[in-house]
């Protein structure tokens, strides 16, 4: 299989028009939509690595710090994401607990692991299962936005539950980190160029 890049062809990332590269070093601009064309995204691996690492760092406080602070007449309680999951499970709502667990804990973690795996495999020039890895990338790309479920519920609760003297709910610092995790992983997925998966398969690395 010969890649388009090797044959001096490049596809516009905006309008998907397949053109000949203007020169071997610089592909130039798309003749149809005028967008700047790249053979491979610039610094794709480096950017993705940076974003993935940042997301991984943020993942720790996102789970340790409370996402929701509930103040009632009786007491003040802080809940972390895992605390909420445990509470939901203990109060019998195990389907809800499962949803929160999957959407808020497992998906961000899974994305981080998946992106890490893709990055490492690409960097090592692995040729194993490029098709599966491409599918993994698509899943990561598609699923990313659903992780915002927790942030969405959090902001909703904070906005609605303001029964001032009796009860009030404040967002905790954890939710900011959690949002950062979601946004950073989405950006990481965006900056990763899936075409890199296939490059080693041609036997000749065109990395970076």
């Amino acid at each position, binding site marked *: 299989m010969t890649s388009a890049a090797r044959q001096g062809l490049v596809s516009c990332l905006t309008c998907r028009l397949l053109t000949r590269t203007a020169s071997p070093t610089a592909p130039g601009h798309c003749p149809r939509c005028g967008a700047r064309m790249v053979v491979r995204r610039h610094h794709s691996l*480096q*950017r993705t690595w940076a974003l993935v690492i*940042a997301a991984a760092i943020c993942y720790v406080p996102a789970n340790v710090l409370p996402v929701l602070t509930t103040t009632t007449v*009786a007491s003040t309680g802080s809940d972390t994401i895992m605390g909420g999951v445990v509470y939901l499970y203990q109060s019998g709502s195990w389907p809800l607990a499962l949803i929160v667990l999957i959407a808020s804990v497992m998906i961000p973690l899974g994305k981080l692991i998946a992106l890490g795996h893709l990055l490492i495999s690409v960097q090592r020039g692995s040729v194993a299962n490029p098709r599966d890895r491409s599918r993994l990338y698509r899943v990561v790309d598609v699923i990313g936005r659903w992780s915002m479920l927790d942030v969405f519920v959090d902001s909703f609760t904070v906005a609605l539950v303001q029964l001032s003297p009796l009860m009030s709910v404040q967002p905790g610092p954890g939710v900011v980190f959690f949002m950062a995790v979601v946004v950073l992983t989405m950006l990481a997925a965006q*900056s990763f160029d899936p075409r890199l998966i296939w490059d080693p398969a041609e036997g000749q690395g065109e990395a970076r």
Partner: protein
Amino acid sequence: METDTPDHLPQAKLVPPKGARFSAIWIIPILAAVVAIGIAVQRILGEGPTITIVFNAAEGIEANKTFIKYKDVNIGQVTAVRLTNKFSKVAVTAEIQKDAAELMVEDAKFWVVRPEITLSGISGLGTLLAGNYIGFEAGNSERRQTTFAGLDQAPVAAGESGRQYTLIARDLGSLSVGSPIYYRRLRVGQVAGYSLVPDGSEVRIKIFINAPYDRYVYPSTRFWNASGIDASLTAEGVSVRTESLVALLVGGLAFDLPPFAAREPAAATEATFTLYADRLAAMKAPDPVARHFVLYFKESLHNLSVGAPVTLFGLNIGEVTSVGLQVDPDSADVKPRVTITFYPERAMAYIDEKSKGIVESLSSADAQRRAAFVRRLVEERGLRGQLKSASLITGQLYVAFDYHPGAPKQKVDLDGPTPILPTVPSALANLEEKLGSVVDKIDRMPLEAIGSDIKKDLESLDQTLTSVRKLVTNADNELVPGLKRDIDALHRTLETAERAMANANTSLLESNAPVQQDLRDALSEFTRAARSLRVLLNELERQPSSVIRGKVESRSGAK
């Protein structure tokens, strides 16, 4: 992969653009790391000490839910509750905030605040909603500590300023922790605690007087029990005192400065006072000089209580200090013994200004002269002690000293620590005695002899009456016939008189009586005479000249 490229020229390599070895994108993970580390550092630095409080029971304490509050501000949170000390106690682990770490000194106090409803008030109402929490009171020590023993009960007046005092009482009465303390009926403090002294002879009551009022507690201040109703029935009547309705229900204490005491600087903290039974006892002036005397009575001491007044001519000069029995070693005779205490100062208060000097000189004189004075009073004037009833209702007795000039003369021995003063039986005992003697006399009367005498008298009376009756019969027999004759004679006389009257009647008043006949005749004569006169007069009227010329023949009659 070798391709079918015709030429074997070297292929140019794609080199990434220069100057972009490290992308700016790396700022993002660095930033994230910095923020995350910053938060972690802040967390670690902001962490206060972890302490352990050992409670007997951890009612309503839950890990991660129960707070430790000082002045209603959270200073920590319970992180774990577990059993300890062979499962007999509860160890509560709590994380204290860093800014409150300095408060964790060795004499800090912890207790569980729970809702409490007692008669004297409701506390911890907030815990009904918020759940129990651990109360905290700061200590004064400087030494930090991490393990504390929790109190079972909230310390009284936690966080309030004031002073603590100790009262010594015979018993606790109806007091309990939290019982109110009143000063001029203001609630100024409360009972903080109580304990028995080690030998169990008295109770030590710890009280707490709140800050502005503690300066009214002077060293000579008297405390008394204001529990319930203080109703006393005295010779003056019934007096009822109570401090407040709460004190009535739950008991309480009151204090005041006795009128005779001076206002000194406020009493020191932890000062000890005696708790008096009531206001009257507390306010009683102390009697510095006291002289003791012994009295022996020959009657029942029932209703004579210790503390009963001793009066001199009706004025209170002392009190009964003990009531007991005395066994005479020689005669093995048992007699009631009453010890009285005489307070000369009280007697002095009654003495007027002029004679005060005499008494003062006497009291300052030597014992010999004093004894002589008392001896004169007792031996010459007949000063005697006597039991008297203060009130007919209660029957309480007191000891009264009065002059009894008729009392048998008696010598007194005023030497020795407790001289014996002579007594006379009480009026009541006297009365009994007299009644007894009267009954005795009645008993001894020869009632039978008297009865037979009376019988004899009655018999002679009967005889007298019989002779009277005889006398009357004689009179009847002898006097009545004579009388009858006299009466007959009288009767006849009357008859004669009657006849005479009848004669008179006939001769004078009957129609044919001569007198009447004569009278009638006389009257008719008179009538005729009157008619003749009328004729004459008529004639004269018609012919007045006839008197002169004589009678003219009736011409007029012819016309």
